[in-house]
């Protein structure tokens, strides 16, 4: 039996929120560790990766890991300058993220670590660091972990990852604005004639099916749920989902367990508790078995 689990090291979106009122949920930005025995896959490198790296330095068994990045916005890479294993000569680190080849991925990972923004560059990393070329079939393998990546709806090229580990399917989509085309069509309905309206209704169905295909049959879905409906109205087009849309989409796709993730840093523990209560109300009203959780920093889930 494999020792397999995932652990949340950072659950916030946008910026770190190390405020006393937020620490029940956690203040660090996106970072999830998925481990099978001695193989460690890290999804995103927000500030959460700093404490993960410090934890790694306390053990001497593992000296290798893979980091997959959904994209290069600050909240997903800003922990890397302080990720201690990268500075250690006995560590081996593989990186993957959006980019046409390994050079572009290296360029994006390195971009934040240069003067005048940071005193040392990635050339100061002593670890054996490699950047993986994308493959035509959009898959990666790391030991017993199988990974597939697909583009999602967020500014710039952004990936969602489907990860097969220990017989389970974990899907990690940190940033994604779901039902975007449906909302666009609804908003602009008055501009279209009957024929166009029919065609765009077909397109809404197409896009909805694509969204479902991306997450279908997930044992665990970790998905962007950044906004309340009120905030989503103000921030439509920012590339994030309203938690209600995330829940409904997950139910439609037959997801078993949903972890609401990438919480808005403005929301304190009380605000997120309100979201959690309402989430369970939606699930109850839809009469589904799906289990919904709030992703919290430090939370560990056996796989």
């Amino acid at each position, binding site marked *: 039996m494999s020792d397999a689990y995932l652990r949340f090291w950072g659950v916030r979106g946008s910026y770190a929120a190390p405020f006393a009122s937020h620490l029940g949920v956690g203040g660090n930005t996106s970072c999830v560790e998925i481990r099978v025995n001695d193989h460690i896959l890290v999804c995103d490198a927000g500030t959460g990766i700093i404490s993960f790296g410090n934890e790694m330095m306390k053990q001497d068994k593992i000296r290798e890991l893979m980091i997959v990045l959904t994209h290069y916005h600050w909240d997903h890479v800003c922990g890397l300058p302080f990720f201690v294993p990268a500075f250690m000569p006995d560590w081996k680190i593989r990186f993957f993220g959006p980019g046409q080849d390994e050079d572009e991925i290296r360029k994006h990972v390195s971009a934040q670590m240069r003067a005048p923004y940071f005193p040392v560059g990635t050339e100061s990393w002593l670890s054996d660091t490699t950047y993986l070329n994308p493959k035509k079939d959009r898959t990666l393998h790391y030991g017993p972990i199988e990974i597939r990546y697909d583009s999602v709806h967020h*500014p*710039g090229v952004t990936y969602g990852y489907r990860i097969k580990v220990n017989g389970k399917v974990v899907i990690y989509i940190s940033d994604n604005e779901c039902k975007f085309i449906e909302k666009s069509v609804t908003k602009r309905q008055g501009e*279209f004639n009957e024929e166009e309206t029919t065609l765009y209704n*077909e397109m809404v169905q197409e896009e909805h099916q694509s969204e479902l295909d991306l997450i279908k049959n997930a044992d665990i879905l970790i998905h962007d749920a950044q906004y309340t409906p009120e905030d989503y109205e103000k921030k439509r087009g920012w590339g994030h989902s309203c938690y209600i849309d995330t829940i409904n989409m997950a139910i439609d796709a037959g997801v078993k367990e949903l972890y609401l993730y990438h919480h808005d840093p403005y929301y304190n523990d009380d605000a997120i508790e309100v979201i959690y209560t309402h989430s369970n109300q939606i699930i109850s009203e839809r009469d589904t078995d799906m289990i919904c959780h709030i992703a919290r920093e430090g939370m560990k889930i056996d796989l």
Partner: protein
Amino acid sequence: MAAKADREFGFFCDDDRRGVMAKQLPVVVLIDNSPTIKKLFERSTEKLGVELLVFDSAESSWDYLGDSKPDLLILSIILPDQDGLTHLKELRKQPLHEDTSVIMVSSKDYMQDRLVAEELGALEFIPKPMPIQTITDVIVKYTKAEPRAQ
């Protein structure tokens, strides 16, 4: 596999009887895997003298773009294999396509995507959904296409 357009690729004659030289139709390549978008473009171009070729992935579009330059390339961003902006970056590295006319059509109407498209020399960025006439207008604007001969 390339999803070929329904129309024949080739020529039309303005008036063969008067010996007017055959005129080659402007070629418009669309890369988008949405059947609805394909329908929209077919509808938008049905009265235009253009040859519409549709490919449903970045990879399959190389069948044509590998050695041919369309008069207008219309590119979506979210594709089943490679994203459209990365595909455009690769195309621009080919001498044949360094100045190919490109229009982005996407539901990803974000400033960051618009800026990258502009940096890669895209002429316009049309957010989905768009009226049929918008597609017709943009094709006429960049290909100088004329109404299809009856």
